[in-house]
């Protein structure tokens, strides 16, 4: 089996790669979103310290 045959998925390329491609994409988005949330909260904590927030 050649690589072009492999990617063609016997005519089902759109459905098969459309499935796995979107799965990869949403995992990547979730990882980036979780990292971003951490960066935001750490920045906020730093800001609270610098402004002498002593609640």
């Amino acid at each position: 089996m050649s690589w072009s045959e492999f990617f063609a998925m016997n005519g089902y390329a759109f459905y098969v790669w459309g499935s796995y491609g979107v799965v990869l994409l949403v995992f990547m988005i979730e990882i980036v979103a979780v990292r971003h949330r951490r960066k935001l909260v750490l920045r906020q904590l730093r800001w609270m310290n610098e402004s002498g927030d002593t609640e």
Partner: protein
Amino acid sequence: MAINWFKYSAPTNFYALAGKLIPWFAWPAAILFGIGFYIGFFVAPTDAVQSEAYRIIFIHVPASILSMFIYLIMAGYAALGLIFKTRLSAMMASALAPTGALFAFISLWTGALWGKPMWGAWWVWDARLTSEMILLFLYLGFIALQASIEDPRRADRASALLAIVGSVNVPIIYYSVQWWNTLHQGSTIKFSGTSMHVAMQQSMFIMLVACWLYAIAIALARVRSIILEREANTHWVKELGEKA
């Protein structure tokens, strides 16, 4: 020596523990995704009826299983938080919701892309598909409800009730193929055995474990941020902010 099991139910200690655990789940998840994909695409043979299109099963079934399990775990944590007023349980429920929603979305998306070439339709109002879509809406409702109530403790209580009531939907999804005459097929793997090729089973099982490990890693990473957000006014988080 007695082990203090309650130690890690305190957000302070759990924050540190979760940080140490993440790579132990994340890396095996990545490796197993690779192995599962390899077996599913290079070892498992072409299906006699569905040709190559059936290969969607290797992600569709694990994602669907996870979407249901994560919901039950989320509702369990929400119930613990409601009954025992433990802060960490409610935070774990919030951390699991987006990942559960993501798996429900993957289940519906890959199902649509599989349904089109096999049934001739992206979507049908079949009991299995409809109950899975309700599951996605329950996750989104849980997230929206938490975001709409400002006081975190009130938000936890309201969303916990939603999560607990909504868990009725999970057995409905699971048994839908038996209770109703659905277009969606029943389980391929049963306790009495299966007609599936061994490589197909291996790929599906490895992908399932990979999805589990991924879900645990990402939920632990998310709960760390939630702990910091909610405990921002405590002494230990302030000290952490000085170091960051």
